[in-house]
């Protein structure tokens, strides 16, 4: 397993990301990861705040149209995230914090799908009061995204479980 991580970290592509002095290598990939986060979590959070009663005049059903941007952000992060993990595989994939982050993201996605299918896609969403389930989903979604961002940020500070030399 460790051999595989070492191999992954030393592929030409990983080495390029890590060691190239080009601004388009590591810095730009990390930048895209941040922008993707803003798109994905930002729009998701906006919908959650609306469900929780913020900006009550805003209709929920047109918010479905924002999902392409949300998914654009998500896939940007899936791709750039994979690159960022590859170039430091022996540290990131041995770090408990990384796996907690992945669990948070998985949970956030499950909740997001539920919000989309059960709340936003309901044709009566703007004419009937929102259920307490919808509010619970919105709270959970905020919680999971905050968890994912916190774990992601902490990856820069928390050391891995095993020291790979």
């Amino acid at each position, binding site marked *: 397993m460790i051999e595989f991580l070492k191999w992954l970290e030393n592929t030409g592509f990983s080495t390029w990301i890590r060691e190239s002095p080009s*601004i388009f290598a*590591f*810095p730009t990939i*990390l*930048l895209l990861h*941040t*922008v993707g*986060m*803003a*798109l994905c*979590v*930002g*729009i998701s*959070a*906006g919908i959650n*705040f609306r469900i929780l009663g*913020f*900006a*009550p*005049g*805003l*209709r929920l*059903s*047109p*918010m479905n*149209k*924002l999902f392409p*941007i949300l998914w654009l952000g998500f896939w940007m992060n899936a791709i750039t995230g994979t690159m960022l993990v590859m170039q430091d595989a022996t540290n990131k994939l041995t770090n408990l914090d990384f796996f907690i982050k992945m669990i948070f993201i998985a949970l956030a996605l499950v909740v997001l799908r539920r919000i989309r299918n059960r709340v936003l896609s309901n044709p009566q969403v703007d004419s009937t009061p929102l259920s307490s389930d919808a509010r619970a989903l919105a709270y959970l979604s905020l919680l999971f*995204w*905050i968890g994912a*961002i*916190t774990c*992601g*940020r*902490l990856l*820069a*500070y928390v050391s891995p479980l095993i020291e790979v030399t």
Partner: protein
Amino acid sequence: MESLNLAHAHLLLNHLPTIGFAIALFVYIGGFFTTSDSLRKAGLVLFFLVAVMAIPTYVTGGAAERTLCPEMKCPPDVSAQLIRNHEDLALLAFVLMETTGFFAWLALWQLRKSSQIAGWNWTVVLLFSIVSVGAMALAAGEGSEIRHPELLDAAEASLPVVGESEPTGIAKSIGAVVAGNTGIGWIWPAAETVHFIGLCMLFITVLVVDLRLLGMAKGLSFKSLYQLLPLGMLGFLLNFITGMLFFLAAPGQYVNNVEFHRKVVLIVLAGINVLYFMLVDETWAVGPDDEAPMRTKIAAVLAIFLWIGILYYGHMLPFLGNAF
């Protein structure tokens, strides 16, 4: 251009918060006595604008100190203690000013929403602006003595100019705590996390409002999108506070970092862009399925570019600049 440095920028900018806030306060109170809504609004706009301009004024102070005292060693005719005193008073005035700016923005927001400022907020803006002007005047007075020793009064002049120990102040102490020098290591990482959460809140508001202005997600009315704006402002507030904590903790990483200068310039421009949206009526009168006017679309495109630019330069601090 080599003769013009950031210390000069600090000297050019430093009168603006003091005089600007005094004028704004005058206009604001004038609006109260004449019960003129436009005068009151003008006062709020001035508070907001000057609060925005106070950001470059504050952050260029660090560069001015480094020009006067290279390598943090002050020449005999410059008092390090005076600089610390000036920095602490300036920080206090800055915090009060930005608080006033935030509530002034909120008052502008309330004005459009319910055509009046909430009573409590009227008082909050008044109180904070008065205290700000006072603190700012003290900070400016202390600042002027740094280069004008002839203004020193007798008691201060008798202080030893070059101390053996490095003088510390409130700003430096806060910085040391955030940087983890007192043994609490989690504050900086926690502030970074909050900075990212604030970024998401700010960005969602910018994107949803501006993309709707450009024609996406029709069905969302501008009148209701307007309710979303405080969320973005709250995100900015979180990022401003955490950003200032980083600045206090490691000023050396920022004061002479070109990427940081660009970021601050873009923040000022973005502030003006926000003000434009707060003041134009045509944007918010557009119905749920209508097109926004061309002028507004241009301002929306600018907003998206400005905020992505701010994110870009913030992100590039360690890569293109000298941070970390």
